[in-house]
């Protein structure tokens, strides 16, 4: 049985040279279960990059996103026998990831101020000199949205989950999902100072060509 115990000893490390002490071990699935089929393991691995991209959209920080992905995969592995083959593993992993994220965030909030609130108070992004947008500007604007809006925009707008799926994953009502999506889009347009009749397009042609030229990786 694949055992991630040794991996877990190193623990997640937000700071490269300062690894956290190990709080607990998460070894392989319980031994009274059958071995995990190879295709399940392969599917778990295949979602790693999308999982990390989703984590980045939540945390806005690569190292924290890596911690979160690591924790998610460890939890998923420890509970892999609760996953039902044929159902949507990505949705299962996303739910574990966001639960871990909000759990960590709740703990952190007891100690520090709400960074999202501070961020949201920042001024609008000024458009580039020609009034158009760079992809990097768009990312900065997106990162200023509250996390609840960012995750819905990613789940529905990018990953094309239905409102119902997103509501299930986020543990809220469908109306809340729609509201967050609309408010997120409106705020993003406001931050980018886009109004009716204006095109929201990228002038970073090199980036645009690279990103959109290949087949979709999502």
């Amino acid at each position: 049985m694949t055992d991630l115990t040794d991996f877990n000893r190193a623990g997640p490390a937000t700071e490269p040279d300062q690894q956290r002490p190990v709080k607990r071990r998460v070894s392989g699935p319980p031994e009274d279960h059958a071995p995990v089929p190879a295709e399940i393991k392969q599917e778990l691995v295949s979602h790693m990059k999308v999982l990390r991209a989703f984590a980045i959209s939540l945390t806005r920080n690569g190292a924290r996103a890596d911690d979160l992905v690591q924790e998610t995969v460890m939890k998923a592995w420890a509970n892999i026998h609760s996953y039902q083959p044929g159902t949507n593993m990505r949705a299962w992993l996303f739910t574990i990831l966001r639960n871990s994220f909000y759990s960590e965030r709740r703990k952190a909030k007891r100690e520090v101020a709400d960074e999202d609130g501070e961020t949201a108070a920042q001024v609008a992004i000024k458009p580039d000199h020609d009034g158009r947008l760079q992809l990097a500007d768009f990312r900065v604007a997106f990162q200023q949205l509250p996390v609840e809006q960012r995750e819905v925009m990613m789940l529905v707008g990018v990953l094309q989950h239905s409102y119902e799926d997103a509501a299930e994953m986020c543990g809220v009502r469908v109306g809340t999902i729609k509201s967050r999506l609309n408010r997120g889009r409106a705020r993003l347009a406001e931050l980018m100072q886009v109004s009716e009749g204006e095109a929201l397009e990228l002038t970073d042609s090199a980036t645009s060509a690279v990103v959109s030229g290949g087949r979709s990786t999502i």
Partner: protein
Amino acid sequence: MSSSKTNQSIDSQIDENLRRIFEEDVEQDLPDRLQRLVDMLDAPDESGDDTEDEGGPDRPDVDEAQASRAAAAASRRAGDAEQRRARAATRGGSG
């Protein structure tokens, strides 16, 4: 162009740009520690070996178990999301 159509256009452009930044992140190489995790999961299963766990395998804590159950429920509800995405990608793939 009507206001609602314009808003739809802005929404779709926002989604497209979000898709681009998301794809940027997806295309990044995994950092070493996540790649090592992948390698461990990819490694062949060594069935039948005696695990030398001190005190036996740990149970996930309550939060993990609850998270897993909630995730499993979401997974069942979202079972056809992949197909919808594939269909949407096919429709929009050439654009």
